[in-house]
């Protein structure tokens, strides 16, 4: 079966199967960026993917632009010694008539100061993880080469008004 032709079926069991696939997709996607594997993370987007959020008016367009931003963010995090873990949850997965999937999920970013931020024994508090961001993430995912990829992402940061 070729990757670009996905038949939409009303079969509820098949719909649930997609839900499980999308949950696994996010686990792989988020773990890639958190361990700094930008290439693996980029491979979870289509070539023409866009990422928009409520802090910047203009979305990043295309994998190349997304790559530049991602490498900078990973380098910034590494430089400051913090470790980020993205937790995706509460995902609502809706198959669209055109075979794409619209997934609306929450994402929390847990930030840990890391070894550079801890001041040695007796100061465990300084190394304690904390919640850094709470967001809502709306993705449009497409099936390509037998796997899901993000074509369009829209992130709303809860701290931004």
């Amino acid at each position, binding site marked *: 079966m070729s990757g670009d032709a996905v038949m939409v079926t009303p079969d*509820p*069991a098949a719909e*649930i199967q997609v*839900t*499980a696939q999308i949950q696994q997709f996010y686990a792989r996607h988020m773990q890639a960026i958190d361990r700094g594997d930008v290439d693996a993370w980029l491979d979870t987007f289509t070539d023409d993917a866009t990422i928009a959020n409520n802090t910047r008016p203009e979305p990043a367009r295309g994998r190349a632009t997304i790559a530049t931003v991602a490498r900078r963010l990973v380098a910034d995090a590494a430089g400051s010694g913090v470790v980020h873990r993205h937790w995706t*949850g*509460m*995902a*609502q*997965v809706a198959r669209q008539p055109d075979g794409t999937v619209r997934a*609306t*999920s*929450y994402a*929390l970013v847990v930030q840990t100061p890391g070894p550079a931020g801890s001041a040695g024994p007796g100061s465990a508090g300084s190394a304690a993880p*904390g*919640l*850094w*961001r*709470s967001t*809502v993430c709306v993705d449009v995912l497409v099936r390509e080469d037998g796997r899901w990829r993000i074509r369009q992402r829209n992130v709303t940061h*809860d*701290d*931004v*008004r």
Partner: protein
Amino acid sequence: MPAEQSTMPRGVDTDLYLEIQQFYAAQMQALDGGDATGWAETFTEDGVFATNADSSATCGRAAIAQAAHAAAARLAEEGLVQRHWLGMLDARPGPDGGVRVRYYALVIRTPGGGDPVIWRSCAGADELVRHDGGWLVRERRITRDDVG
């Protein structure tokens, strides 16, 4: 062949488990998004919402919607965004084709320009019933960990 020594009740099957996860995702997103009417419609007409912080339960869709409206207005006034995270679902077949679910819930609050905090930690117990191919809450009992 039943394992006679096992006293652990069976959970629901995998498909149903995922379906129930989806129900909660939709329900919490409705509540957190300020859709009080949509939230209330995830309860049966005579649905009950009870917590250990309030001696009287909220009964019926209209009252549940009204309470959600009031809560959303308070949050807006305080400039807070709230997100409910449910997890650790223990879903078991209930009477009449329904499902009983026990779960944990965290409520995350984010102020404008500030860091998110865990505002509440709770345990929940729901009685879900089938309706139009989906699910509705007939009864919800929330135990807030900060209330004695």
